[in-house]
């Protein structure tokens, strides 16, 4: 079962997962810890810190998921484990 190709597949899948997890931590938590500082920047009436929680992080999550679906699919095909 654990052929070299499978091992390499799982390693790539794991790194992609950790990249996503890192981005998730950043947009889910880290950026909002600086809300007070970001709020001093105001764009179109939006304090930036408020904007990130109301819209910015949400947009990031959506984009991340479409990118992830494509990226993971490319890894599948590269290692010939995609569904026929």
């Amino acid at each position, binding site marked *: 079962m654990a052929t070299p190709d499978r091992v390499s597949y799982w390693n790539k899948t794991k790194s992609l*997962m950790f990249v*996503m997890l890192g981005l998730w931590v950043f947009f*889910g938590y880290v950026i909002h810890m600086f809300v007070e500082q970001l709020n001093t920047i105001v*764009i179109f009436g939006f304090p930036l810190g408020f904007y990130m*929680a109301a819209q910015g992080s*949400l947009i990031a999550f959506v984009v991340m998921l479409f990118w992830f679906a494509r990226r993971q699919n490319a890894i599948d095909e590269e290692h010939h484990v995609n569904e026929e």
Partner: protein
Amino acid sequence: MANTTATTAGGGDFTSNLGRIYGIYTGGFIAFIILMAILSALGVENVVIGYLFMGFTIVIYAVIGVLSRTMHVGEYYVAGRRVPALYNGMATGADWMSAASFIGMAGSLYLLGYDGLGFVLGWTGGYVLVAILVAPYLRKFGAYTVPDFLSARYGGNLARLIGVVVLFSCSFTYVVAQIFGTGLISARFLGIDFNVAVYVGLAGILVCSMLGGMRAVTWTQVAQYIVLIIAYLIPVIWMSTVKTGVPIPQLMQGQALANITALETAQGITVHHITPFVHGGYDAKNYFLLILCLMVGTASLPHVLMRYFTTPSVREARVSVAWSLLFIFILYFTAPAYAAFAKWTMLDLVASGLTPENIGEKAGWMMRWAAADNTLVQICGKAATDTAAIVAACAEKGVTALSFADINLNADMIVLATPEMAGMPYVISGLVAAGGLAAALSTADGLLLAIANALSHDIYYKMIDQNAPTSRRLIVSRILLVMVAVLAAYVASTKPSDILSMVSWAFSLAAGGLFPALVLGVWWKRANSAGAVAGMIAGFGITIFYLVMTQYGADFDKATPNMELWWGVKNISSAAFGLPVGFAVMIIVSLLTKAPSRDMQDFIEEIRVPRGKQMMEEKIA
């Protein structure tokens, strides 16, 4: 066996025509709104418009339910596994966005300002975890229910049973909130007593989910998504256009925020809408813990995960998570704008010079809501049922000019009342009611189905009678569905808490009970049966203990003093304790006991790759 590949010539007729079918449906719904507007202009009474909106939409859902009824096991449990990614995304959107999102969230954002955004973040970011950690692997396994997976991975019925207990607890809490929401809408818009209204809401829910299992629920949910998103967007686009001249509320929210701050300053309000960590006890610690619990709960809630069992492939499951989040995002990034425009409108109203005598004339909608339920609108600390009551209450407190703080609006009514607040025609109120109903019904359907499936498939079929014929399993499932629903309606009629809190509890229960077992089950081969069982019991146990003890106390009475909060952590984030304990216990016990067998390790290898046949094949009984 239903074919599990995408569309084939035979079964593809419906699937390939989906775009056309739902296009016609959307056009029809818009035509219906216009017809209602005309009727309203012709002088048809408001309550009739309310009945027509709610009656018509429920009939549509019922028709879809009847048309997609099924007695086939694969269709009943997983819609034949041929729901395309985009439509599954839409159905998940409706499944996901409940009364809490539609009715409760913008109201909480209105009251909590920045601190309410924790809900927005928590309920979107969790999909990242769903996509990268859980959903594609469960799809590969080919489960019918979440406990199916637990049983296969952790060998045996004990893990399955605990999974069912957690599933039941969180889904039941969640469904109570939905029935509460339908009751609230029925009470206001149909003018019936709340205690009766919850059972009326229940009837609407059962009609859709009883007949055709997952298949009927899927196609009904797509229809419900369309209704709820139209109903959510129209009032806020309206407010944005009236207030700023630009019909893009998400963009014009900036201007609304600037105006809110200016009005707050002018009225001497020191706690600003945009200031972080100052509203309703949400300090930074509670804010971030809530986000964590909601996100992790998302990736553990069985009624959400089971939606990804219906896609044709693992690949489609991943894409489907992205579509789900996109459809959810459309509502969630509008909610803060909804709250901002509603608050701006209210601050303007107060700035226009409100007194206890003239409020009845300037904002008659408050009295109508107070009449529906006397906790919804309070002015000067008393129910604002009529001008005399308001004048009396304010005289007692010595208030002559009303300030923003004197008017206390319940979070659960703000979205539903906004059309009246902003002076929109009643037809918009009817539309919003129909949208709120769609949101509550669609989620309740998904939840009841998850509960009934777990009881009929996991308990009855897998644990009690392995030889039960298909027809009997499906009948058992339907009977259980009704019993659970009636029980939930009874609990809802006791008004345990507000919608948002009840739903958040469900997330914490799911997160504490299921997340470690699901994630480590895929990502850590060393996780074994003893570890998972101990971890689930410990994580779920701590979560529910903290929740019950802080909410009700040991005597199960809300009124008497309850357990002190640990480090001031609100009980809607109970999983803040359950989650780390669950992980720790599972890891430690796993390491102390024997590693899983060679076969089990191969099984995990297989789950991790998309290629190959799904692991669990259902025999047609």
